[in-house]
């Protein structure tokens, strides 16, 4: 997921740290500083949780897609985790593996990692107006429809390409974009069994991806007519399988969704609590959007009643208010996301590794972190894989990779001498940049805190002699027009980052640093790093399934990438959440957000 919504993290480790035991891996490695540990999130409801009531979540923006087949944002997951049941999903305290949801148990993976068999539960009914029991064929349809251009799913082509028949299905959709194609690699021998046949030993990756909302069942006889439209209207007519549903009328049209204004969740009358691990205490959840001023919204939540924050992380001012005046209402959760400044390696001056290393060495990463609120907003990053993701410890943990070849990344407040050393190596005897290649452009966020981070970094670049022209643009535009389009990409993109899609380190390294992923229209490899050995290694890892081996290989690769300095890693993000005093929030560690299916109101 894009780092706009990054938050989430292993509850297990936090709980372990809280009782003073050391985490798995090398002894003494903390993944959370003591400052953050003070605000550890609660990931399980109390035994006597109260039933009923209405919760309001205040959000600045809207979901990216209301259609669960395309939903990608954490805020969207706040909704989908309550309304739809994918094969596997993340219970609030899940950190390493998801919990079987529509599936009735763990997936059966063949020894060659090429076949995945999942058995689904019976007794799960769709919400009105469909009302019937969901079957495995509905999961097959849900995945098939993600290939339709009208559904705009952004990750089928990343995680499901190894499912047999992917290419034929894509071709079929090109011919007829109004009908979901037949995907022969997904087999449903009976109503409660679904089998995935893979062309490569990529079972671990595919199973991880089955925890995304797109694998939740969708009734084809109901959805077909909506999917046939240019832009599928299933999103505004969707049916639910979870404990909650978006309010709709008798024809199925959502009455509880006003784009940009609110999303109203009510109880799904067809939901059977005996089939679900979710307790669903609340009667309804009202997500109100449009609170662009997150400072005043946070103040409202802290001093108000029955409210939580929706999609945003607390700005520095609010973090200060919460931490100093309302500490019991604040929780800080590592989010499984990193933030970095991408340096464009495809053109001067950052095609020279010594100049890149100098920039990394000179960067005062603590000053960058200060723009987001200081230590509570995350740990200073020393490589790319974030805490609690497999590969983190293997890459060096919090302290990061050590050794003379990593001297440029050792000092979190910057080391001007090391920077000067590398500048001299690059041929600038004065230690500062000289010449026309020193005029660079930077495209960043036009809104705080991103704009502030960009400004601070600009100042730091100028210390090294660069002349920086900074263009602030809308966050989405920054990606879709500049940083993600190689032809328009500037030399520096300071406001980028990556968040995990699921608990695996490959996701964090592959798309952002794989040279084969650089396509001229839309790439997330912002540094445009294209090193053959790294590309090969990433392809190789995709086929390694044993978890320990994966973690080791990913950790080593992370260090290798860090050594090339394609970017300045500066933060391993936290998600900061607040709740009113009369709310008993439960934080979902995967989504780093309040889990409305587990949250209740205080008595």
């Amino acid at each position: 997921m894009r780092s706009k919504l990054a938050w989430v993290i292993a509850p297990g480790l936090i709980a372990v740290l809280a009782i003073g035991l050391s985490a798995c891996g090398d002894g003494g490695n903390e993944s959370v500083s003591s400052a953050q540990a003070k605000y550890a999130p609660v990931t399980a409801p109390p035994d006597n949780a109260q039933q009923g009531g209405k919760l309001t979540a205040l959000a600045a923006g809207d979901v990216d897609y209301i259609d669960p087949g395309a939903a990608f944002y954490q805020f969207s997951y706040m909704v989908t985790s309550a309304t739809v049941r994918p094969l596997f999903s993340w219970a609030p305290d899940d950190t390493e593996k998801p919990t079987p949801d529509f599936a009735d148990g763990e997936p059966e993976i063949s020894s060659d990692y090429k076949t995945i068999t999942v058995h689904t539960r019976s007794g799960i009914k769709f919400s009105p107006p469909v009302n019937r029991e969901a079957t495995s064929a509905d999961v097959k349809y849900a995945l098939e429809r993600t290939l339709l251009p009208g559904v705009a799913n952004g990750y089928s082509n990343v995680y499901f390409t190894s499912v047999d028949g992917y290419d034929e299905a894509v071709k079929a959709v090109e011919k007829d974009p109004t009908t979901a194609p037949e995907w022969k690699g997904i087999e449903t021998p009976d109503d409660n069994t679904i089998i995935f046949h893979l062309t490569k030993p990529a079972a671990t990756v595919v199973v991880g991806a089955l925890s995304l909302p797109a694998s939740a069942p969708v009734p084809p006889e109901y959805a077909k007519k909506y999917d046939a439209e240019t832009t599928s209207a299933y999103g505004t007519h969707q049916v639910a399988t979870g404990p909650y549903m978006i309010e709709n009328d008798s024809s199925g049209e959502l009455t509880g969704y006003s784009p940009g204004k609110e999303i109203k969740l009510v109880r799904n009358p067809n939901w059977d609590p005996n089939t679900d691990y979710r307790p669903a205490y609340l009667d309804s959840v009202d997500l109100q959007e449009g609170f662009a001023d997150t400072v005043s919204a946070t103040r409202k939540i802290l001093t108000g009643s029955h409210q939580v924050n929706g999609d945003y992380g607390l700005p520095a001012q609010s973090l200060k208010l919460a931490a100093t005046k309302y500490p019991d209402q604040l929780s800080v959760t590592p989010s499984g996301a990193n933030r970095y400044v991408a340096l464009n390696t495809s053109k001067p001056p950052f095609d020279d590794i010594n100049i890149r290393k100098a920039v990394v060495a000179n960067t005062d990463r603590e000053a960058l972190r200060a723009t987001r609120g200081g230590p509570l907003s995350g740990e200073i990053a020393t490589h790319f894989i974030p805490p609690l993701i497999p590969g983190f410890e293997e890459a060096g943990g919090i302290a990061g990779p050590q050794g003379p070849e990593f001297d440029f990344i050792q000092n979190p407040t910057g080391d001007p001498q090391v920077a000067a050393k590398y500048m001299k190596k690059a041929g600038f005897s004065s230690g500062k940049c000289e010449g026309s290649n020193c005029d660079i452009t930077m495209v960043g966020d036009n809104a705080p805190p991103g704009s502030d981070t960009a400004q601070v970094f600009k100042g730091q670049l100028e210390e090294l002699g660069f002349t920086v022209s900074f263009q602030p643009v809308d966050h989405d535009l920054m990606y879709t027009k500049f940083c993600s389009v190689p032809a328009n990409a500037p030399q520096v993109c300071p406001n980028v980052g990556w968040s995990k899609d699921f608990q695996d380190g490959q996701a964090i390294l592959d798309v952002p640093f794989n040279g084969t992923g650089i396509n001229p229209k839309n790439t997330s490899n912002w540094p445009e790093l294209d090193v053959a050995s790294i590309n090969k290694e990433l392809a190789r890892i995709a086929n390694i399934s044993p978890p320990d081996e994966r973690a080791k290989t990913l950790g080593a690769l992370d260090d290798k990438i860090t050594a090339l300095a394609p970017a300045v890693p500066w933060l391993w993000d936290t998600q900061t959440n607040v709740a009113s005093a009369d709310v008993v929030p439960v934080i979902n560690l995967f989504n780093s957000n309040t889990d409305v299916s587990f949250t209740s109101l205080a008595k």
Partner: protein
Amino acid sequence: MLRYIVRRVLWGVAMLWIVSAVVFVLFYVFPSADPAVLRAGRNASPQQVDAIRHTLGLDDPVIVQYWHYMRDLVLHFDFGFSFQSNTDVRALILDRLPATALLVAGAAVVWLAIGLPTGIISAIKRRSLLDRTTMVTTLALISAPVFWLGLVALYLFAKDVGQFPIFPGIGSYNEAHTFLARCGSMILPWLVLAAATAAIYARYLRSSLIDTMSEDYIRTARAKGLPERTVILRHGVRSAITPIVTLLGLDVGVLLAGNAILTETVFNIPGVGRLVATSIERSDLPVIQGVTLFGAFFIILFNLIVDIAYAYLDPRVRYQ
């Protein structure tokens, strides 16, 4: 008279058409972002992006796109779908309209209620201390940027953060569910938006009255022995009212069309103005088109009403 109205209406329609073409070209010639990429999301493959581009009709030539757009607009009153959120543009605009309408209507009431009496009293008590202070105060209000005034008002009077917490503050409109609560959340925005306009109207009325007071027929009225106050109020104001009504019409039209964007931004009011800002930021062309046409419609409509009212009152205008 009828011919005049027909001519003006036809020209109004023609203008709307020209405006739509101009905006279409403007945002096509200066493309800000590829809408297909925006829709496709983060990891989309080039084929997916192309497929989306094709379904959105973006690979047709501009003329064809424009034709499709106008045809849908005229025949079905369909403004298309937002690139960003895939929601019906017309519904989006109509959803935002009530907030702006409430803001503008309330502000108009305030600026008339404050501006007109101030102007009249200043004219009556010309050159007094009251008059001079009023003149400087109104000038100061006109000189203050409205968004700054809004922040100062919030800093002083907002319930959650103000030094003297009296009125609901930022974001209170989003939480208000009754009409009364909504009005409460609008008090500070009304005062802020009305401040500069009230000042303008006060000054205008004052100088217009002073001019009128040197006319012959006023001298006659004075000679008749009528008190100064009656002279001004009955004769002076009557002649100054028509231009004020004109100004009012134009101001309201422009504000409804989206010029309240600054006030809406400061107070976080989900109105048409904010929609303009966000849609431009995201290069959401259908929404920009829709909002511009909608705004132009309001401006042209109010201009039309004002012109026709003038023509009714002053026959000479019809023959221009």
